[in-house]
């Protein structure tokens, strides 16, 4: 069983392959829900808005905005929920290629000192019409 459940409801009228799509430079509104299933003993936690690469190459990422989450609030059985709003830059667009993919997402990130960090993503597409 995963330690957390992370869901995002994007306020979005347009979907591509059932994934919310936003235009470059537009504002992204939504609500996130973070449910803690098991105790989390991390150094810090953060809500992040940005992009990262996936595929053959080592991971690159760009964080547009981040919002700290208090580790004390990460209590098992508790659900953290809040609205968010951030403005997208004009690039990079979402991309899926042969070796490289560029993925935009709202994500929650837990920083552990003695184990691998945990990240949960809610992807969306950033692309022009």
């Amino acid at each position: 069983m995963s330690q957390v459940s992370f869901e995002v409801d994007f306020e979005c009228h347009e979907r591509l392959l059932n994934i919310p799509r936003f235009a470059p430079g537009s504002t992204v509104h939504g609500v996130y829900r973070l449910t803690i299933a098991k105790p989390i003993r991390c150094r810090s936690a953060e809500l992040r808005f940005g992009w990262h690469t996936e595929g053959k190459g080592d991971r690159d990422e760009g964080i547009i905005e981040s919002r700290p989450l208090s580790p004390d609030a990460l209590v098992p059985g508790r659900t953290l929920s809040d609205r968010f709003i951030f403005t997208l830059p004009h690039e990079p667009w979402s991309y899926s290629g042969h070796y490289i993919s560029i993925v935009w997402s709202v994500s929650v990130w837990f920083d552990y000192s003695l184990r691998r960090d945990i990240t949960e993503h809610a992807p969306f597409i950033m692309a022009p019409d």
Partner: protein
Amino acid sequence: MPELVPHSSLGNRSGLKWLEVFMLMRENSVAAKAVVVTAIIGALAGFFFHACVIMSSVAVCNVPCPGFLLFFLLVIGGAAIGPVIIGTTWMNRLKQAMDLPRLNASAERLRRGDTLDVTYTHLFHQQIEVYGLQLTLVLEEVATYTRGTDTVTERHEHVMQTVDLPGRTLWDGETFTGRASFTIPPDAMHTFESKNNKLRWWVKTEIRLSKWPNTFAESYQIVVEAGA
């Protein structure tokens, strides 16, 4: 129309003439492999020469061995001489046959849906038949990853559009000219560069000839902007 910078001339801009030669050779001929082979042969020759000197001097004349400085000079010198000779010979022969091609473009920076007009010019110093010229619009993915202590870079090309132009017979001193138009696809991805992942757009040219070097290829980078 601005002239696009050929990929091989990046070496020239760095001030390292030999880097330009190597990049031209790598793009165009198996001579680049010959450079590597001769470098290895030269290094081995330097090593064995030094080994023989040591053995003969100790066995016959009891002369003190040459120092490690001489050893490295022989190995490195042997490794360098071969590539320098091959590179110089190749470049001189190429310049006797022709100038390097030039590609002029209607713009260096474009957006989706834009038209890119290019003019290819190539001056030859000998009578030659051009069999044809191919121009290709390419989106290249470049992915770099670390495997242990090694850094590996892999590339994949998406060919967007190809234009094949007919050739003709040229006399000594004549210039071959070819024109083509490309359309940046309406759903094209923009140019992207990050530390380990890159998306680059190129116009690639390849001319086929009746005489050495038989084919000559070059790449010219363009930028597809995301736009506001």
